[in-house]
C-alpha cells in the first residue's frame, strides 16, 4: 500500500534553548510537545499516538506517556539514532493509514551540553552482550573517527578534498547568521574550516556539528484533521528507511543506507531529485552531507565534493539550498540527534516561515534526510519527501 498523502505534518516546534541546565529532560520533552500542539492548534486530548526514541527517559515510551499524561492507542519507540524522528514520521503515516491513530505526537529532547558530554571524541562502551562491542571498543571508535574513516576513503576513491567538505560548513554558516537561536552565528570561510584543529583526520573541528541541549516535536495527523486546521498543509508524499552495517566483513564505505531509503521515498512520491526545491540533509559532519547527497541522487557517486563546492548549498546562491536554519553544523543538534530539526526546517520552508533571507521561493517540494548511528559501522537512514498543498 502506498502511503502517499495518507497523512500531514500539522505541527512542528523547535525549542529555542541551546543550553538548559535548569531543566529536566522530561520537562524539555513536555515543552516541545506543548509547542508542537500549539503550533497545530490541537490539544493534548487530541493525541492518540506517541512516538519517541532513546533520548526519552524511561523504558520505551512508558515514562513519557505517563509524564505527559497522554491517552494513546498507538505507541512506537523505534530508535535509529538521529534518524529516529524521520522513521517516526513514516511509521506515523503507516499507523494513521491503518486506522491505528489519528494524531501522532513525536518528541525529542536532551541536554548533552549541560551534562558536559564528550559526544564525538570519547569512545562509548555498552552492554557486553552487544555482539560487535568486543571487536570494536578496544580500538577506540568514536563518533568522529567513525565518520572520518568514511571521509578518508571517499578522498582516496573519488579525489574529494578537505576544501570541498569545508563548503558544507561554510554554507551552513551563511544560513545560521540569520537564525537568532543558532549556537554559532558567525559566517566562516573555507580556510577557517581548514585552519581549525584536526580532531580525527581528515575532519577538523569545524567539520563537526555542535553539541546542544534542547529538542523538538512534530504532530502528524490524518487528512481530515489537516484540513480543519488554519495552517499551510504539509503533505507527506514519500518515505523510506534503511539500515546498513558491516555486511559480515564485506565492508563498503563508499555508500550509505540513504541509497535505499532515498530510492524508496522518491519512488513513492513519484518525483526525482531535480524536482526538490529545498533539502534538509543530516549534517553530523560535513562528509555526512556529501555522502547522502550522492546516495539520494542529487549528483553522481563520487561527485559530492564538487557538488557542494562554491556555495551550491547556499540559499539564493546555489542550486540546492540546504539546512537554512544553520543545521547541526551551526544551529542545533539537540540530544546529539539531528533528525528532528531537519524535518522542522523543511516544514518551515514549505510554509514559507523560514527567515526571509533564506526562504526558498515557491518552495512547494522539500526533502528531509536523516542519518543515525555511525557511518563506518552501523547506521540508519530515513528519507521524507514533503509537499505543500
Amino acid at each position: 500500500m502506498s502511503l502517499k498523502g495518507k497523512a500531514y505534518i500539522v505541527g512542528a516546534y523547535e525549542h529555542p534553548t541551546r543550553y538548559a541546565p535548569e531543566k529536566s529532560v522530561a520537562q524539555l520533552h513536555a515543552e516541545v510537545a506543548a509547542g508542537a500542539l500549539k503550533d497545530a492548534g490541537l490539544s493534548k486530548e487530541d493525541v492518540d499516538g506517541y512516538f519517541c526514541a532513546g533520548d526519552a527517559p524511561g523504558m520505551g515510551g512508558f515514562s513519557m506517556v505517563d509524564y505527559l499524561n497522554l491517552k494513546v492507542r498507538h505507541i512506537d519507540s523505534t530508535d535509529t539514532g538521529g534518524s529516529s524522528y524521520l522513521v517516526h514520521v513514516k511509521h506515523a503515516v503507516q499507523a494513521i493509514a491503518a486506522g491505528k491513530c489519528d494524531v501522532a505526537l513525536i518528541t525529542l529532547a536532551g541536554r548533552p551540553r549541560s551534562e558536559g558530554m564528550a559526544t564525538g571524541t570519547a569512545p562509548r562502551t555498552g552492554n557486553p552482550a552487544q555482539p560487535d562491542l568486543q571487536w570494536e571498543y578496544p580500538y577506540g571508535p568514536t563518533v568522529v573517527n567513525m565518520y572520518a574513516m568514511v571521509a578518508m576513503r571517499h578522498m582516496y576513491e573519488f579525489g574529494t578534498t578537505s576544501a570541498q567538505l569545508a563548503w558544507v560548513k561554510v554554507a551552513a554558516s551563511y544560513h545560521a547568521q540569520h537564525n537568532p537561536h543558532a549556537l554559532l552565528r558567525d559566517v566562516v570561510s573555507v580556510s577557517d574550516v581548514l585552519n581549525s584543529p584536526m580532531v580525527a583526520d581528515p575532519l577538523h573541528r569545524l567539520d563537526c556539528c555542535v553539541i546542544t541541549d534542547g529538542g523538538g516535536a512534530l504532530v502528524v495527523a490524518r487528512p481530515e484533521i489537516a484540513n480543519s486546521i488554519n495552517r499551510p498543509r504539509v503533505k507527506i508524499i514519500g518515505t523510506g528507511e534503511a539500515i546498513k552495517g558491516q555486511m559480515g566483513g564485506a565492508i563498503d564505505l563508499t555508500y550509505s543506507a540513504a541509497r535505499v531509503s532515498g530510492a524508496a521515498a522518491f519512488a513513492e512520491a513519484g518525483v526525482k531529485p531535480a524536482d526538490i526545491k529545498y533539502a534538509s540533509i543530516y549534517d553530523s559532519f560535513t562528509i555526512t552531507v556529501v555522502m547522502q547527497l550522492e546516495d539520494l541522487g542529487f549528483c553522481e557517486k563520487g561527485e559530492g565534493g564538487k557538488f557542494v563546492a562554491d556555495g551550491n548549498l547556499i540559499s539564493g546562491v546555489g542550486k540546492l539550498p540546504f539546512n537554512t536554519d544553520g543545521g547541526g553544523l551551526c544551529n542545533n543538534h539537540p540530544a546529539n540527534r539531528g533528525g528532528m530539526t531537519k524535518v522542522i526546517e523543511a516544514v518551515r520552508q514549505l510554509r514559507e516561515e523560514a527567515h526571509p533571507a533564506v526562504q526558498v521561493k515557491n518552495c512547494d517540494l522539500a526533502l528531509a534526510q536523516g542519518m543515525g548511528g555511525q557511518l563506518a559501522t552501523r547506521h540508519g537512514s530515513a528519507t521524507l519527501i514533503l509537499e505543500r498543498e
Partner: protein
Amino acid sequence: MAERKIPAPTPTPETEPFWQAAREGRFLIRVCRTCERAHWYPRALCPFCFSENTEWREASGRGSIYTFSIMRRAKEPYAIAYVKLDEGPMMMTNIVDSAFENIAIDQQVELVFRETEDGPPVPVFRPVQA
C-alpha cells in the same frame, strides 16, 4: 609519546575460543564450511548463508589498510583503521609501530597482539617492512 592503553574486550561463550587462542598468540577467523566464505566479526551462524556449519581457522594475519583515521583529540592519539584481511573480510583495528604520517590506504600490514588493560590481548596491525 605514550601509547594508548587498550581496554579489555568482553568475550562471550560464542567467542571464548578466539580469545583463548589470542592468549596463545594465534589469530583465528571464522569460516563457513557450507559456503566456504570467511566472515568478520566471528559468529556461530554464517552471516552469509545462516549455516551452523562454521569453524575456527588460523588466519595469516596479513592484510592491507582499507581506511584509517588518526584520533588527535585524545590523551594519547591513536590510529584506528579497517584492515582487509588476505582471507577476505575486513576488520576494525589499530595501526601501531608506525609514525602517523606514514600510514596510508592500501599499505600492507601484519598482525601483532597488543596487551589490554585486564583482558586477553587484541589483534592490531603494523606496516610490513619492505
